[in-house]
């Protein structure tokens, strides 16, 4: 395969850098891309992948270095110029107009017109049907944008990029919201494009995909390129090492063995309008990972547990006692602490100081009629040290802190209530590795004090590294359970794609 890739570079990126104010987000990144080559761009959140992609797609300019496209300097003034030069992008955050049909979305601003300049609607829908069929996407072009699932939106987004007939197609996490089958379709598509001589740059968090599809890989960490390698010269461990800058074993704590009998939380056939009956148990001190593609019931589950959207029936027992989680206040009173996936909107008052954010309904044994400032300060200082929150002082507004430090404030606030169960929803999204590791160790420490944790995450490394047991959700139902000894990315992915456990075992038996 490697031998087939043409040798003349279509694009060369030579030492480019980019800074926002004093914050350097890309430092001296260099790589080249040949025609018909598939390049994977890998890195953690905040590593600079998006910045690099936005530079290529003309949304951002670059400060230093030089990009050449077909031996001409490439410095697009905007997305339109990027498209003219042959670079099209399919964003992860799709831009689908809800009131336009699939065909109208795909051909938006490139609609076929008759000689009077009027749109040819019928022809366009026909073209779209043919295009979608060719790409292997089973979507009716007459459907409206608002009826599409996340996966279908992604497919429409990719189709739209391809209509621009690009020399280089940039795919931003194209498979993040796709089931295993749909992801295979996209990977197959990349191979088809490659065969036609179109180059592909794709961003992915799924290392198995990178290993499978990429001719070349570029790994970014904190804006710097930590690895550039061609197919066959790298393996998974090299990628992980380059992504996080150290071995996985140093990021995640070592989990102790658990007493299997001591149940902290048991949910039996609990359900509400968003969630069909679900049953699960979490042992004392256990970290239960919940895996699944985007939107498979994780949010309803988290919301039900924290009382925001309560269960309508079924039983929930916490520490042996039946509890009714009818409101957020009831959940808090029962001993459930919840850290939502969206810190900016659900957890913190960004304009207020660290001290006030920590004491907001945090200190349960405080005076009923207000909290003495001195106690707030004392509590705040202790927490700031314990959680190693990096800030100038306690009075700094939370909005000025980095994502990781904001998250630590949220933790500090909840832990002051000594919860029995901690529900974490994407706890490290957009957080640097150092803070991540600190949070992981903190969670581990808590479980040793008997706190149980439900960890809902889309980050497979995090789930595998931290959980004692993983449940997979698909279409709001539990499709499987994996014990620590059997953890693997592939297994989680397959169960997450709705392939039930029995089927997986059967397949395993056939292979053996």
């Amino acid at each position, binding site marked *: 395969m490697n031998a087939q890739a043409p040798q003349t570079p279509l694009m060369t990126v030579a030492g480019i850098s980019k800074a926002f104010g004093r914050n350097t987000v890309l430092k001296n990144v260099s790589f080249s891309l040949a025609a018909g080559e598939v390049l994977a761009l890998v890195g953690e959140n905040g590593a600079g992948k998006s910045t690099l992609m936005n530079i290529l797609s003309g949304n951002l300019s670059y400060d230093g270095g030089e990009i050449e496209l077909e031996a001409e300097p490439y410095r697009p003034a905007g*997305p*339109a110029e990027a498209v003219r030069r042959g670079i099209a992008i399919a*964003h992860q955050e*799709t*831009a*689908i*107009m*809800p*009131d*336009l*049909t699939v*065909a*109208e979305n795909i051909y*938006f*601003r490139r*609609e076929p*017109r008759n000689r009077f*300049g*009027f*749109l040819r*609607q*019928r022809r*366009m*829908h026909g073209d779209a049907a043919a295009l979608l069929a060719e790409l292997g996407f089973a979507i009716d072009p*007459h459907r*409206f*944008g*608002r*009826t599409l699932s996340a996966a279908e939106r992604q497919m429409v987004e990719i189709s*739209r990029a391809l209509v621009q007939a690009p020399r280089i197609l940039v795919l931003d996490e194209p498979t993040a919201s796709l089931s295993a089958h749909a992801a295979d379709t996209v990977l197959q598509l990349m191979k088809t494009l490659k065969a036609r001589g179109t180059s592909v740059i794709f961003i992915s968090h799924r290392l198995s995909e990178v290993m499978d599809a990429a001719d070349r890989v570029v790994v970014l960490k904190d804006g710097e390129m930590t690895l550039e390698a061609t197919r066959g010269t790298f393996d998974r461990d090299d990628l992980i090492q380059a992504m996080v800058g150290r071995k996985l074993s140093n990021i995640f704590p070592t989990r102790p063995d658990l007493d299997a009998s001591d149940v902290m939380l048991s949910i039996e056939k609990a359900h509400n309008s968003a969630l069909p009956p679900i049953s699960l148990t979490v042992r004392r001190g256990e970290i239960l990972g919940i895996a699944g593609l985007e939107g498979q019931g994780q949010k309803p589950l988290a919301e039900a547990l924290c009382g925001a959207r309560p269960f309508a029936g079924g039983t929930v027992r916490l520490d042996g006692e039946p509890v009714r989680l009818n409101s957020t206040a009831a959940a808090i009173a029962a001993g459930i602490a919840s850290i939502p996936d969206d810190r900016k909107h659900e957890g913190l008052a960004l304009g207020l100081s660290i001290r006030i954010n920590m004491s907001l309904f945090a200190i349960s044994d405080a005076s009923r009629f207000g909290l003495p400032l001195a106690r707030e300060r004392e509590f705040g200082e202790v927490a700031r040290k314990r959680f190693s929150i990096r800030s100038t002082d306690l009075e700094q507004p939370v909005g000025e802190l980095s994502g990781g430090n904001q998250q630590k404030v949220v933790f500090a606030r909840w832990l002051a209530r000594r919860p029995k169960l901690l529900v974490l929803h994407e706890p490290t999204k957009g957080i640097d590795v150092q803070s991540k590791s600190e949070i992981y160790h903190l969670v581990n420490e808590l479980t040793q004090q008997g706190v149980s944790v439900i960890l809902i995450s889309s980050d497979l490394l995090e789930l595998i590294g931290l959980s004692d047991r993983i449940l997979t959700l698909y279409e709001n139902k539990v499709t499987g359970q994996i014990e620590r000894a059997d953890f693997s990315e592939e297994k989680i992915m397959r169960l997450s794609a709705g392939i039930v456990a029995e089927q997986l075992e059967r397949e395993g038996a056939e292979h053996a």
Partner: protein
Amino acid sequence: MLEGSFKFNVLLTLPALVLTILLAVVTGALSPNFVTETNLANLATRLLPLGLVALGEAMVLFAGRIDLSVGSIFSLSTAIVALTSDTLGWYAIPVTLVIGIACGLFNAAGINLFRINPLVMGLATAAIVKGVTLLILPSPGGEVNYELYDALFGSERLLAMPLFLTIGAYAALVVIMGWTRFGRSIYAFGSDQRAAFVNGVSAWKVDLAVYGVSGFFAAAAGIAVSIKILSGDPLIGEAYTLDAVSAAILGGVALQGGRGSLIGVLLATISLVLVNNAFNLLDLDTNFQNIAKGLIFVLALVFFMRGKAGEA
């Protein structure tokens, strides 16, 4: 021809079509004076100003915005025509239209450049324009060149200038909205601003276009009325703002943007004119008319209410 979102938008006009036919049949059955040349010509004369204001308002609503200043621009236009048509003659018309467009651009600038909420911006512009109008024409008066009246309303028949102008304006914009990339961009912007922007639609161009068009048609409607009453009236346009929004909603245009067809807006305008006509023909209290119009507006909003985000 009818395919995709365009087809869907035309389907949204069905309720307005049914309502129009129903009102025409009921009024016709109740009053022998309904189907007479005089009454039909009268209907067309009334259709022209409301039709034009509603047309401009619908364009703004397609883009997910709203223009609450159309009534004031309407009044201002009657005042300008009344004060200038003696000296300027025919030229009073383009001058007034340009001023109408300028008011629209003022709205666009506030909303787009200074990020002022469209509702609030419309109210502010309305207050400013109303103030200016009352300064130049404190009470109804002025005079309009009779030649203009003759040209526009001279023939008192159904198939005459008022109807032709209304149909012509709608036809032109139906084509632009349904069959051009520009129209598609306005729908896209109203449907999801961010998505449209990412796909290369310029918010500034959309705002300029829709508010410019809205100002233009509000002015055109004011011109028509001032010619009809041969004078200016600084407060005559007040009621037109609500009627215009009401007609657009009744015609199937989504208040949130991105949906609806001008065909429905025209039908809904005809319905509102018919309601008015029925009240007159049947000799009912005009206060009931306002109540009826308000209720129709609320019912239309409920009827076309868009479900929660994400529903099919």
